[in-house]
């Protein structure tokens, strides 16, 4: 697709969508949002970019193969699950929290890191599937 409007638009929309996806991820604990939808939105941003600039440029923009994000995300989620076991000796997946809320983000605790893991996995999975299929097409 060789449209100047789409190319120009995609260039600006991608960072916006990425910021939006992080926003969704962070606010998920208080208001609608979360890692799952955040990851999807981020993936949509890259897919849009892919339509405008083609697969190779999108790959170059990402630097790493999105498939690598899956194990990273999974390990992050798993680590956040194990953090109470290591830190306080409580059972697996007990949530632990910092005492004081951080401005803008809110209270930070192990579930946030878990959600980040979900974000990365969803993002990685969507892009892996889409990239693979569009490459074959």
């Amino acid at each position, binding site marked *: 697709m060789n449209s100047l409007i789409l190319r120009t638009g995609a260039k600006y929309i991608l960072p916006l969508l990425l910021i939006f996806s992080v926003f*969704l991820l962070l606010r*998920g*604990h*208080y*208001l*609608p*949002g*979360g*890692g*799952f*939808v955040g990851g*999807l*939105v981020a*993936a*949509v941003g890259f*897919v849009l970019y892919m339509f405008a600039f083609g697969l190779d440029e999108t790959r170059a923009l990402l630097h790493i193969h999105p*498939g690598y994000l*899956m*194990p990273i*995300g*999974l390990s992050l*989620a*798993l680590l956040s*699950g194990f953090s109470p076991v290591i830190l306080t000796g409580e059972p697996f*997946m007990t*949530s632990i*929290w910092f005492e004081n809320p951080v401005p803008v983000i*809110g*209270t930070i*605790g192990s*579930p*946030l890191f*878990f*959600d980040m*893991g*979900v974000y990365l*996995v*969803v993002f*990685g*999975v*969507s892009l*892996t*599937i*889409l990239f*693979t*299929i*569009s*490459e*074959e*097409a």
Partner: protein
Amino acid sequence: MLIAVLLGFIHACVLIPTGRFLKGKIAVLNAAIPIGLFIYFCSFIPEVVTSGNVVRANFQWIPSFGVNLNFTLDGLSLIFALLITGIGALVFLYTSAYLKGNAHLDRFYGYLSMFMASMLGLVLADNLISILVFWELTSIMSFFLIGFKNYDEGSRRAALTSMGITGLGGVLFLACTILIGSIGGSYSIQELLSSQILFSEHPYYALILFFIFGAAFTKSAQFPFHFWLPGAMKAPTPVSTYLHSATMVKAGIYLLLRMSPLLGGDPLWNNTLMIVGGVTMLFGAFHTLFRTDLKGILAYSTISALGILVFLIGIGTEAAILAAIFFILVHAIYKATLFLVAGGIDLAIGTRDVTQISGLRKWLIPLSIAGFLGALANAGIPPTIGFLGKDLIYESTLHAPNAGSILTALSIVTNILLLYAGFVVGIKPFFRKTSHEETEIRKSPFLIWAPAVLIGAAGIIFGIFPSLGQSLVTPAVSAILEHSYTPNIQLWHGFTFILLLSAITIGTGFSLYFIFRPSRKKEETIAKIDFIAPKFLTDLFVVSFGRLSKIWTRLFNSGFVRYYILIVLIFIIGILGFKLFEKPVIYMDLSTLKDVSTFEMGTILIMILSIIITVFTSSRLTAIASLGVLGYAFCIIFVFYGAPDLAMTQFAIDTLTVILFVLVLYRLPKYLMLSDTRSRIRDGILSIAFGVLITFICLAVLAEPFSREVTSYYANYAYTLAHGKNVVNVILVDFRGMDTMVEITVLAISAIGVYSLLKLQMKKSEVD
């Protein structure tokens, strides 16, 4: 003690990075693990043996399910732990010479270490669940050990057979564990014993026995499950040594001994064990006559020895339990010796065919000494430990509650045949005239003969000083009988009836050895009745089961997604429709329904329109686009009814789905009428039926009384416990975070699946 048990697993993990260094010239260093453990367990001898205490070490594992790693070191556990680590140490040393230069020696040590650790855990654990876990671990590890020569098809098959048989036992053990746990209210053997529950009066007693016997008989190779053991001879000799003498097959015996205070004492228990054990010991002993492979002879003699043990546990008197535990010691010592010798012969001359080997004493002096010691202990010739063991067996059979003379006769016949087997393996290869040239023989290195001589000498030492064995065995017997019991084991009891029986055994055995010659011909004769052997029948079962599953799979796997969906839908409609039809619960109260707003009306209209377009359009792109419209309309409905999270996710998903479809579009053939009218009508009817069914189910759900307990729980605690206000997200990442964890794992797996399916480039040779 936890570290002691887990040390083997730790060692195996350490071997992953350091294996390259630990498989070369310093491979012998691996033996430090079992030697260290052996010394560690020896340090408990004063406490457990001398003062009769029980050492406990408790570790919480899953306290909420009552599953803990409680290790109990009583007399019985100690004997097993010493055998496992002691013989383990010799096997580790022996391996470094036996598999010298093997490319996967590090892997082998890893398996062996984990196997040892699982065995240790099994004999030390007090909790039935943890015993079960270790039990299964031994099965898995022995699978890897038996199949170590994975390039050889026979090895792979043998490993699978043993895995299959012992796996079956594992399932039965699981069933037994659950039954005992739910009847007794605890998984801890100690607590079950002190709760004084009489299992033998419970209506499920027979079932429990069925399960536990199934577990023990498969593991300990009792007839008719014995056949995996001779098959397991495909493994390298150190594995066979370890599996036969101190570990694996003794696990079933250990389980029976451990359980006998809990479940024993009933005629059902005693008679079953006596019959199965008796059949096995005779069966195994007779089979040794017809084998020519050194290891094959030993395998059948192990089966026979295990039969003796089960038989003795079945008799169940004080004397029998004493004899059983002492015989475990005896058997471990002489069987380890003989196996190590057999492996040494194999290494030296390259064959294990007993008809081909003779007169090796000329070149393999230390090995022949070890073989001689092993054969003596096996035969029960004084002053070896075997003599003491045989005495105790005759003593217990003679004084058995009933049919003492028959039992004694059976054990005499078995012992005669076992003596023959031991002589064939331990003495025959070294004596008589040699037919070998010196150049054929490879001299045995130190680490091959030394372990064999060492353990063989132990057999003599234990025989000359009976008090050694007696003090080891006493606390174990007391642990099983639950009261203190002091046996009197002596080398010389005077001229008694038992001495006469011993003399008869040894005399007849000698003459059998000198008259009977193992030969290929006899082996072939016995092979003729293989068609009724359990092994053959099992193979038949496996093959026919495989055929059945192939037919079954073909029936449902057409290879077309549309037929899969068709089958799934028909099944759901059938089963749910039947349930609804059977008990209709639908009722609608129109007055409680809200008015329909214009927005909702509009959205629904859009949905209907897009469905019609999707179904009847002749362009694929249009169909996909209108499906996307349908999805978005759904999201709007979610927004109306207060599910913004769902709506948002659904929006993103629908967008991606449409994109995905468009990407796939390039690869599909042009939109043609691929299905005829008949199948379109069929699909239409099916989808309408499914829609109607879902509608009815929704109505049925509304008709049920609605409990808000769960909702209010999450709503109340989302902020106080999880610091979040968005209940949906809190449930996803916190309350039910484990589910999410599994879900994202599934997601990742499916992505890998897509990637590998599309990237897969088959070589010409691989295309079916």
